[in-house]
């Protein structure tokens, strides 16, 4: 009796294994918009630490690359406007006391 029962159970288990039960594509599309789905809405999207770090590093590199030529350009412009006041120009008619004594 028990042996028959287990045989029948095995047969039933095999039968149930053949049942194809999977949700439709529509179900998965619906679930993709569920609140726990990470790509469902921007409000639910929480950037990971690694992604945040990568963004910060990229921004820093870009700023550095932009900053070096910009600084150089700014220095050149600054120098252009200030060179007349700071640069020393040799005066050929500078008064020399030794020369005037000889005369």
């Amino acid at each position, binding site marked *: 009796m028990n042996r028959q*029962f287990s045989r*029948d*159970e095995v*047969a*039933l*288990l*095999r*039968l*149930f294994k*053949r*049942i*194809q*039960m*999977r*949700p*439709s594509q*529509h*179900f998965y599309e*619906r*679930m993709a918009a*569920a*609140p*726990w*789905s*990470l790509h469902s809405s921007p409000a*639910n999207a*929480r950037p990971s630490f690694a992604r945040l770090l990568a963004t910060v590093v990229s921004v820093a590199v870009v700023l550095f690359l932009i900053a070096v030529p910009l600084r150089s350009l700014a220095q050149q412009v600054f120098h252009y406007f200030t060179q007349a006041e700071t640069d020393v120009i040799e005066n050929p008619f500078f008064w020399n006391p030794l020369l005037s004594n000889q005369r």
Partner: protein
Amino acid sequence: MEFVSAKLRGRARAKPYTSEVAFSQLFDSTHLIVFRYVYGVLGGPRQEVEDVTAETFLKAWRARDHFEGDREAAIRWLLAIARNEIVDRLRTRQRGADMVWLEDVELANSDLSPEQQLIENERWQQLQAIVQTLSEQQREIIVLRYMLGWKVKQIAAHLGMAENTVSVTLRRIIQQLQTKVQEQQKEDRA
């Protein structure tokens, strides 16, 4: 510092599905179990089964802060939510508009011979007719045992029943199926 991290670890174990990532993983690993359970207990149609499955996870998501336990406990929790949803649906379902249990599922081809597959297909139809006459709880026992592969002990614990009651129900259904098969064979011979 150690105290804080130990406390955080304890909290993560106690309420493991509060974050989107953890709940998403729970959904990925359990949605087929919930879907099959709902299909088996509700009986169909597919659209309604999908609605109930989706509603089950949405309710679980809303109540995730109150859940504590491991994955096995989470499955039992999800099935309990699904069961409440099924009861509501069955209550509102029109009486007399009964449909055939699992009418819209298909049997996959197996490595059995065509003759054996034909016999199994007949057995499947007989089983559908038998399950149609069962109570919701008996149907749930069949689903948990044969569709989800649970052990009698697990089913009994989940349903709050004695193990013996579950075993007797299973035996009775199998006997009914055997009787049906024999009657069919007699009819075929005649």
